[in-house]
Structure formats: structure tokens, C-alpha cells
């Protein structure tokens, strides 16, 4: 008997049918991937299983007990734990305190027995194979260690179903293996793990079965053994896609941007060069200093020492505007927080870096702004019924294109893409890759920061790896291997 079943779940939001008569089941001791493009209904389904939202129709059956209108407390009591992308930890409390948050430890009603708490926390951590100390404060932990604490919380709750929403998105490549190990351990304890991910490779590596949603409809459940990548993608997008990484016919030209001994913002003595027509992949763990390097290059943070050369000339950027004037533009990692004006229309977002350029005597020409918008909506094939739509209304992939468009509209041709395809669907990923290829072919220089190994090796002409604020190695196309990149990213340089 499956530990968890959803039966004929339908959920409508005003104007949207997020889930349409969806049924599926999850077994004890399996890692079951849940896949689908953005907007397919995965997160709504998770919310319903967790009791955070109630379904309009259908029921959730946990361990044979059927719930209609399940509350979060019901879900918790039934043994369902969810680890969301934004972790739910109190950063200034210790690991042990976080593990037992909301629980009584010891006999006192007032003061928890901290000794007992730390002992039990140490047990949980040992079970997860972690060497983190229970007394450590959570903010001192790396992203993957924090995730481990979340998993520990689920363990303390004695969970039967563990739902993980894109757990690999927030942590670095080298730490993913460790997370996999813990997830497998949970499986071996008999927990049903529901694993939501956009990364096809890790689904094949980790999961026994995969269920696919598309536009709120249940499409299929397949065993990953015997399923082809093509087949999976076809289920997700409803059509065939050409090869994942389109070929590029770019000629590598002169150096566009050189960092010479660049130091500051947590980075030390960075020497990197990117040429016109080239994609330089920048790999490393989260916190290796890649984003910090990007912030210095794009003028947001002033380096303490060292120099930046743009087209062969030394440049000092006092602001992002200075860097843009030299053609250097950043496409930031977190499009919602750092890139977009979510409530503003597309025809505001795309020209938003260029208002000054589009104005005379301080007065913005609305006509020019609209023409610029139209040009980039066409060129990047941004799908929207009108440029008056708020950015919030677009899908993740189209939002990403808007962020790229606004940097291109500002006439930048030395581009830093920070995690360009995070959280966007397969179809949009391909379009972003083609777009990057087109840019390289037309002579732009691209630095691509990515934690997605496939993308790193598939798109880059060269790869530089960073570790703790330093560049630990550079690999040319011939030397590429996942193994080597991972070694460098963990500081192993021999």
C-alpha cells in the first residue's frame, strides 16, 4: 500500500486551474522525482500535501487515512515534512535548538534541558553522517549544512514522507553528492522522498521513479531505469527538443575584459581574461567568491586593489553606470530580487537601464522606450500578449529573457551571466543557450557563473574554477571533466 496518495486533486485560483484532477501515489522507501516546467503545478501540489493550501476537490491519503481539507497540523501529525527552497531556520540559534524548535526537551515546562537537547541533536547528526557540532550557530553553516539541519528536523519529526523542493538549487556542485547520500539514507530508512528538481541528470542518478506534471495535468509516472532523457523531456514540454547544447560557430578574438590581481569583496588576486566570441565558465561552490567577483567587475563594489582592463585599457568603475558605459553588464543571479521590477510593465523593465540615454533635457522619450522594448521582445522572443504586462505575470523563462534584454538594451557586450538558467524550464533553458551563442557569435564576451555542471561543461569554451576567493585552476575544452572541475572547486589542486 502506498504511504501517500493524492486522488483526483483539483485546485483553482481565481482565473487559474493550477491542478486538474491529479492522482498519483508514493511508496515507502523510494525517491520519487516530481518534474514539470514552471507553472506545471508542482508547488501547488506540494502545498496541498503539506496542508498549506486546501484542494477544491479530491483527497490526500496518508498511510490509508483520507484527508479532505488537510491542515498543516494534520500533515505534520501524519508524518509529512517539507523542505522548501527558502530554508526555515532561525540563523542565530544553534543547530540543536533548531532541530528541536517547538518541542519540549526535558521535564521543565519553562527551560529546555540543553544538555539533553545537545545529546539528542548529536545523535541525529551522527545518523545523518554529519560532523557538525550541535552547539554551532546556524548562520555559521554552509548552505548544504543548513539543508542537512532541515533534513534533521524532518528526522526528529519522525517523518514518513519528505518533500524537497529543488534542494540542489541553493547548494554547490561539490556539496550535492553529500546531500544525495543523506537523501538515500532517508530512503533506506523507509521514508518516501518526493524530490522536485529541474535537473534531469540528478533525477536519473538519484530517483527510482519520476512523475511528470504539465499545465496542471498529470502526464505520467515512469521508472527512471529504461527511460531516456528525450522521453522525459518530451513528457515535460509535450514536444521533441533538439540537442541540449546547441553548437556555436563563434570566432574567439581579442581580450575584452581582463582582471589582473583583482582583490577585494572577499576575493584575492584574481587573474582572468575573457575574449570576444568566448564563453568563460566560472565554477565553484556557493560562497567561493564568484558572485563577489561579478559585483566588482560590474561596478557595484569597488575592488581594493588590482586592476580591470576593458578592451585593453585600465578602467576604474565607481558605479554600475560607469561599467555599463564601457559595455560591461551583469545579468544578476536572483532575477526577482536583483533584476526585475516585478510590478512594473515589460516596457519599463527592458529600458530601465537606459532611461537616461533615451531622454533629452531629462525628458524620457516614451516612443523610443517603446521602440527599444519592441525590438528586444521580438529579438529574444519574449512571449507576452502585450508589453504593458507586469513582469510578475511572465513565466520564469520569459522573466529571465527580460533581465537579459534590459542589459542588452543598455548596449552591453561584455556580459556576466550569473546562474542564467536557475529555476527555468527546459524549453526556456535552450532558448537562453541559443541566445548566449548568438551573442558570442556576434562578438560579445561572456562570463557564465553556474552551479549546473552540465551547463558549465556544455556551454563554456574555457572553465575557471574558484575556491575560497581564489582561482584554483583553468581548464580548456580538451581538459574538461566533471571530476576535475569538482576537485578544483573543493580546493584540491594537485
Amino acid at each position: 500500500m502506498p504511504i501517500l496518495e493524492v486522488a483526483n486533486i483539483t485546485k483553482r485560483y481565481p482565473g487559474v486551474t493550477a491542478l486538474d484532477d491529479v492522482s498519483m501515489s508514493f511508496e515507502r522507501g523510494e525517491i520519487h522525482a516530481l518534474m514539470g516546467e514552471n507553472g506545471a503545478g508542482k508547488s501547488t501540489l506540494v502545498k496541498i500535501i503539506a496542508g498549506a493550501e486546501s484542494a477544491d476537490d479530491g483527497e490526500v491519503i496518508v498511510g490509508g487515512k483520507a484527508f479532505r481539507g488537510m491542515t498543516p497540523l494534520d500533515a505534520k501529525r501524519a508524518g509529512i515534512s517539507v523542505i522548501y527552497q527558502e530554508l526555515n531556520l532561525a540563523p542565530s540559534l544553534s543547530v540543536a535548538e533548531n532541530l528541536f524548535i517547538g518541542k519540549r526537551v526535558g521535564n521543565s515546562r519553562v527551560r529546555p534541558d540543553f544538555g539533553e537537547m545537545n545529546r539528542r541533536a548529536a545523535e541525529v547528526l551522527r545518523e545523518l553522517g554529519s560532523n557538525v557540532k550541535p552547539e554551532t550557530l546556524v548562520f555559521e553553516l554552509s548552505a548544504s549544512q543548513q539543508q542537512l539541519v532541515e533534513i534533521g528536523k524532518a528526522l526528529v519529526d519522525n517523518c514518513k514522507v519528505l518533500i524537497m523542493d529543488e534542494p540542489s538549487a541553493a547548494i554547490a556542485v561539490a556539496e550535492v553528492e553529500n546531500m544525495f547520500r543523506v537523501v538515500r539514507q532517508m530512503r533506506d530508512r523507509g521514508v518516501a522522498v518526493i524530490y522536485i528538481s529541474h535537473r534531469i541528470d540528478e533525477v536519473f542518478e538519484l530517483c527510482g521513479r519520476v512523475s511528470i506534471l504539465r499545465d496542471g495535468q498529470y502526464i505520467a509516472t515512469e521508472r527512471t531505469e529504461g527511460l531516456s532523457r528525450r522521453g522525459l523531456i518530451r513528457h515535460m514540454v509535450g514536444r521533441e527538443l533538439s540537442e541540449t547544447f546547441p553548437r556555436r560557430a563563434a570566432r574567439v578574438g581579442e581580450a575584452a575584459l581582463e582582471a589582473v590581481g583583482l582583490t577585494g569583496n572577499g576575493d584575492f588576486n584574481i587573474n582572468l581574461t575573457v575574449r570576444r566570441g568566448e564563453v568563460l565558465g566560472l565554477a565553484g561552490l556557493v560562497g567561493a567568491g564568484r558572485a563577489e567577483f561579478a559585483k566588482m567587475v560590474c561596478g557595484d563594489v569597488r575592488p581594493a586593489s588590482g586592476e580591470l582592463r576593458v578592451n585593453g585599457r585600465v578602467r576604474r568603475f565607481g558605479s554600475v553606470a560607469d561599467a555599463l558605459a564601457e559595455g560591461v553588464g551583469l545579468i544578476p543571479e536572483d532575477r526577482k530580487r536583483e533584476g526585475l521590477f516585478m510590478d512594473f510593465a515589460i516596457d519599463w523593465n527592458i529600458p530601465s537601464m537606459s532611461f537616461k540615454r533615451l531622454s533629452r533635457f531629462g525628458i524620457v522619450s516614451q516612443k523610443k522606450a517603446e521602440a527599444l522594448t519592441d525590438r528586444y521582445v521580438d529579438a529574444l522572443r519574449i512571449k507576452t500578449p502585450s508589453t504593458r504586462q507586469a513582469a510578475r505575470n511572465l513565466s520564469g523563462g520569459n522573466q529571465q529573457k527580460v533581465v537579459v534584454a534590459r542589459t542588452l538594451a543598455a548596449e552591453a557586450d561584455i556580459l556576466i551571466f550569473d546562474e542564467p538558467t536557475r529555476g527555468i524550464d527546459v524549453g526556456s533553458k535552450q532558448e537562453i543557450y541559443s541566445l548566449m551563442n548568438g551573442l558570442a557569435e556576434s562578438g560579445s564576451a561572456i562570463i557564465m557563473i553556474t552551479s549546473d555542471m552540465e551547463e558549465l561543461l556544455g556551454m563554456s569554451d574555457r572553465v575557471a574554477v574558484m575556491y575560497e576567493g581564489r582561482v584554483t585552476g583553468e581548464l580548456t575544452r580538451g581538459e574538461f571533466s566533471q571530476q576535475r572541475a569538482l576537485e578544483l572547486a573543493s580546493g584540491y589542486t594537485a
Partner: protein
Amino acid sequence: MKRTIDFCQKNLALVLLVTAGAIFSATTANFFTLTNILNILNQNAYTIIAMCGVALIMIGGDLDMSVGYHMSICGVLCAMMLTRTAIPVPVVVALTVLLSVAAATLTTFLTELLAIPRIFVTIGEATLFQGCAYVITNSKTISNLPAAFKNIAQGALGHPSLTYATLIMAVFVAAMSFTLSHTYFGRHVFSMGGNLTAARLAGINTRRMKYIIGILVGFFLGVAAVILIGRTGAAAANTAAGVEINILTGILLGGVSIRGGEGKISNCVAGILLVALISNGMQLAGWNPYYQYIAKGVIMLCALGFDMFQMRRRSVMNNQRKEEIVKTAAREG
């Protein structure tokens, strides 16, 4: 019909103002006369001028709670220079505005130095300014301001009730309205209110912009203080105390979001006038002033609720649009 409702929700303050005006016209003999309307504008000129600054701050994503005491201390200093020194009137006015700009720049400086939202700095400053104003006036009202000074606010042009104060206000309102909607400076202000980090990474020098916004706020508050004491002919430590609540309520009713990034000056003017009409109505009805406080508090909370409601409504509409967009995109492949 749908469009009418949409218009009413977008321009709530204007619709309510017209409604309130119509009710007063029907019930009061002398309400809908040119003289009375000009009088209302004259009485509120200083609030509307100050509002131009506060709205700028709010659209840029900040809040200022020191407005009342900021204006009070500027008014007091201005009155003291007028009555106790021989500095010529135009120089006094210029100095007052400069002092106001300096105070507002100090606010921006502290905001940047401490890296905290402007609201907290200004809450502290409000008390500081209040104390200073009481100390330097010794809690006494300064009156007997020179006629040449009072003329700046009270002088009239063409119609006895069309005062310079009203004209100055009209010019500022028009200028702010134009600046916000047509210049890149205005767009940058909206961008900052919409998403400060994104604005900075889009190449907007947000630090410099904050100083410029601060200077403009100081300018508007300084002029508003001059107009206020010019119209009443006297200044005291509490002359403009509490005016920030009226302004904030008016601005919120005018559709500026407390989270920043949206708003229209014309609607804010309507919002301020609406608040003024309501207070005026309560005074005419002879309400106990304490009940008026209660009413103002309720209106302020309603304005916040309206802001929330606008946001919810938008998110429902967004969901509907998003589905349409996703469907169209799917059809087109």
C-alpha cells in the same frame, strides 16, 4: 461598467473628493463658490507643497515621519530671524529653505551612515526637532511677522482669494507631476521604490538619488513652512505638529503604496483635499477635537487597508493574466 469601476478604484481619492464636494454643495449654501474653493486651496497650500516632497520619498520606497516638527522648527527659525534680526525678508526666506535642505540632507546622511530605513531616523529626528523648537522659542508663540513676509503667502492675484500660496502650490504640483511621469529622474525614483537592489544594479546611482530626493524634500518642506507661518502670521514650536499624519493619509488615499514604486501626484492632491474636507466638516459639525483624532486615526487605517486591498486585487488580476499568457504561449509553441 468594468472600466468605470476600474477608474474609480484607480482614482479613489478623486472620486471620493467629488462625492464629498457634491454632498457639501447640496447641503451648504456657500460651498460651491469660487471664493470658497479658492479658500480651501489656500488653507491647504502648505500641506500640498509638503506632500510633493513626502510623496517623492514614498514613491522612492522610503517614509518620513519628521515632517511636522521639521516644518515647525523651520518656521520657528524663520520667525526668529524675521523678528529679532535685521536680515532682509528675501534672505530670511532663502536661509529658511537652506536650513530645511540641510536638515533633510542630514537625515539622508544618517540613513546612509546607519544603513537603516529613513522612517527610523526621522522618528528620532522628530523628537529631536520638537525639543529644539521648544527650547529656542521658550514655548512661546512668535507673532508680529513683518507685512512684507506675510505678503508672500497672503498676497493675491486677480481674485482676492487667489493667493500667492495657492499659485506657488500649483506650480510645484505641476512641476512634480511632470518630473515624476516624464523625466528619467522620475523613472529612477519609481525604479528605486519598485526594487532598490535591481535599481542599483541597473546603473542607477541610488545613493546619489537618495541625497537628491532628500534635498528636494528639504526644499518643499522649507517652502511649506514659510507659506504656513506667512499665512497664519505666527510661529510656535508645535505649529505644524502632526501634519505628517494628514499628509500620509492623503497620500495613501491618493494611491501611493506604502511599499513604494507607484503613485500619481494629482491623486495625492485629491487625497490631501479629501482629508482636509473631512476635518473641516468635523469642525463645522462642532465635533469634540478628541473625536476628530479618533476619526483621523480610523481614516488613516482605512487608507492602509485600501493600499492592501489594491495589492490583493492586483494579485488576483495577475493570476488571471498569467494563465492567459501561459495558454497563449503554449498554443504558439
